[in-house]
């Protein structure tokens, strides 16, 4: 490069300077973004992806958790295919999710609508509804045992006091699942309420006023305006609820122990029993992997369906 050219270059007006600044700025932003993301990604990788991969790896072995392990390939999965308790647990989990998710959503929406209007002691009532959600599942289940204990529980004592027979909450399948669902719904309603309450603040009042002017009653406003506008929130709650339902453990473990028979055995409690009681950790890992895949597929399908519906609208 000649000296003249160098001079020309150095003395050229620099239209790219702002662009370079922008690039430098963008580079700094990207660096900051990575800086902020890295801790999360590290935690995600170390505490989620790595255990997930390790669980899949373990599911290919027969292992008691320590000592020598034996590679069995798909042996654990083939055994699961013929395991009646596994299928019963899967069915129970589906039934549990199928009841608790819609019921807690409907009740949560109802409570949110009630709490969304001027009401004396509203803050206190919101706290009362939300409290069960933040209490430890074990504590909730212990409280549930006091309520639904078949012999000395509060419900049966009240029933017997008025001359009615007690309910077999612990020794018959349907009442046991009912007790479990009631306790679970009680804990989940508060969360649905809080999320719906936040979403209700974004429902434009003008729409409701216009509908009211057109003669729509409250039910029609709710059905044709509020509920459709809450659809993204509902999708979020359904996905979260299904995932939570497939992870249910503490309430079942303490309240029913999976019994009577296998009436309330869930996928996670069964995995725990096989992994830590029976010390068949490879088999338990296989249950965990399948549960993960089922939740993944269900969530993806649900999400896709909702997006398709939104696009169609």
């Amino acid at each position, binding site marked *: 490069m000649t000296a003249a050219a160098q001079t020309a270059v150095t003395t050229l007006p620099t239209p790219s300077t702002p662009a370079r600044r922008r690039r430098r700025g963008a580079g700094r932003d990207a660096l900051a973004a990575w800086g*902020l993301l890295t801790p999360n990604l590290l935690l995600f990788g170390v505490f989620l992806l790595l255990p997930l991969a390790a669980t899949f790896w373990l599911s290919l072995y027969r292992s008691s958790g320590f*000592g020598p392990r034996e590679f069995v390939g798909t042996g654990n999965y083939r055994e699961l295919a013929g395991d009646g308790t596994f299928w019963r647990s899967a069915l129970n989990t589906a039934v549990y999710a199928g009841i608790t998710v819609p019921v807690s959503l409907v009740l949560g929406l109802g409570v949110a609508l009630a709490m969304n209007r001027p009401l004396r002691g509203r803050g206190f009532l919101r706290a009362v509804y939300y409290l069960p959600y933040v209490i430890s599942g074990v504590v909730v289940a212990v409280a549930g045992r006091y309520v639904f*204990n078949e012999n*000395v529980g509060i419900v049966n004592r009240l029933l017997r006091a008025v001359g009615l027979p007690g309910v077999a909450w612990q020794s018959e399948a349907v009442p046991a699942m009912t007790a479990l669902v009631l306790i679970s719904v009680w804990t989940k309603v508060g969360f649905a309420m809080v999320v719906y309450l936040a979403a209700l603040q974004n429902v434009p009042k003008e729409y409701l006023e216009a509908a009211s002017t057109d003669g729509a009653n409250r039910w029609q406003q709710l059905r044709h305006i509020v509920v459709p506008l809450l659809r993204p929130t509902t999708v979020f709650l359904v996905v979260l609820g299904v995932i939570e339902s497939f992870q249910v453990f503490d309430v079942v473990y303490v309240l029913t*122990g999976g*019994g*009577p*028979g*296998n009436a309330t055995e869930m996928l996670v409690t069964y995995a725990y029993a096989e992994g830590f009681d029976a010390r068949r950790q490879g088999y338990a890992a296989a249950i965990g992997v399948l549960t993960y895949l089922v939740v993944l597929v269900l969530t993806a399908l649900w999400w896709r369906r909702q997006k398709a519906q939104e696009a169609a609208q």
Partner: protein
Amino acid sequence: MPRSHGVNTWTSATGRFGRRAFLAASAAGVAALSGCGTGFALRSGDGSGSAEGRLSFTLWAGEAELTAFRALADEWSAGSGVPVVFNVVPFGELLTGIDANLASDRAPDLFRVTYQDIGLYADGGALLDLTDRLPAGYADGFTEAFRRAVTHQGRLYGVPHHTDTSLVLFDTEAVRAAGITPPTTLDTAWSWDEFTDAARRLPTRADQFAFGVNWQQAGAYRWLNWVAQRGGRLLDDGLTGPAVPNRAARDALALTQSFFDEGLVPPTTSTKGSYVDELFTTQTIGMVFAGDFLLPTLDPALTAQGRDYGATFLPRDETAAADLGGNAVVATATSVNAEAAADFLAFLAGDDAQARFCQEAVVLPTRTALVERGLDYPLRPDLMELFVQQATTITPELVEQVTVPQFNAVNTALVDRLEQAFLGGDDPAEVLDGLADDVEGRLS
């Protein structure tokens, strides 16, 4: 645009500052978590992995047990010069913690373990072989059943520190009102028929039952008492396959199923149900099968209610048989203090130390000399004497079945299958066929 400029300046300044602060805090958080990472498997407390110059001992323990352990450890340390540090964890978390520590080479020198779990660890090569490390003839001081409980493939892997077993506790007033006279000697223990007749005389209604049996969850193996009482076994003599179905198991299952069918026991007390001792304190049941370790809990509760209670022996049939409860203490194969660990174990399960521990913690001895001599219990010595006698019916044959390495898996099969019979009303023969399949699969 001063306003915009002002906002940008504020955002930029605080953003940069905030970002740095946030990143620093995040880095600190990650470092803190990484630091915690190595400690997740170990519980907080004053103990940790094996290290030279001290013995680490991981255990669960009630207050009285821990006091006794500490006193004995202090005494041994005074002589040996090696301190013992305790890492006390909840019972439910001990084994998962130990597994994690074994997997990460952070195992303690010593840990407490139930007899049902010892085979698993011995089979996995996790335990120190004590056969040649204990004083000559030391193991002969234990009764045969307990010696077998800590023996795996002919080698000794722990010391049988103490045992527990069950008796039938009864509400004195309820039993008197029903005109029942419980047996007072082991030889005159109720036969199955006599026991059932006595139970039928106790009042029952919707929320009142005659008795409850302690076969829930991990205690499901206690059902094997009934099989053994009729002279049968769950596992074959080689401990490699099921011995069921057999006549004794069928009879035992038919009898125990009838307890539910007749409404003698609460339906909530099946193998997946609630523990029975709480039903005794609430007077839901008049008699309860309960271990000696429950006395420190039951006694104050019943005394506070002004209730008197007594105990009688487990029913017997062709023979007497009782469940193996209690715990061993083992040393780990990776201990860097193998010699000191073995010396401490020999001291801990010796005559004098075991006598003191059993008396203070209200549990039963495993050393023959103590069984013969008797102990001076501070709580209900009259009942503890009966427990000691009942423990002599813990047979070596029953012990070897419940200490196979795969027994945890076998026990979960028992939980499921017995529940089918008790609450599902399934035919005993079909249940035992299913149990045989399960046992075969789990032993393989």
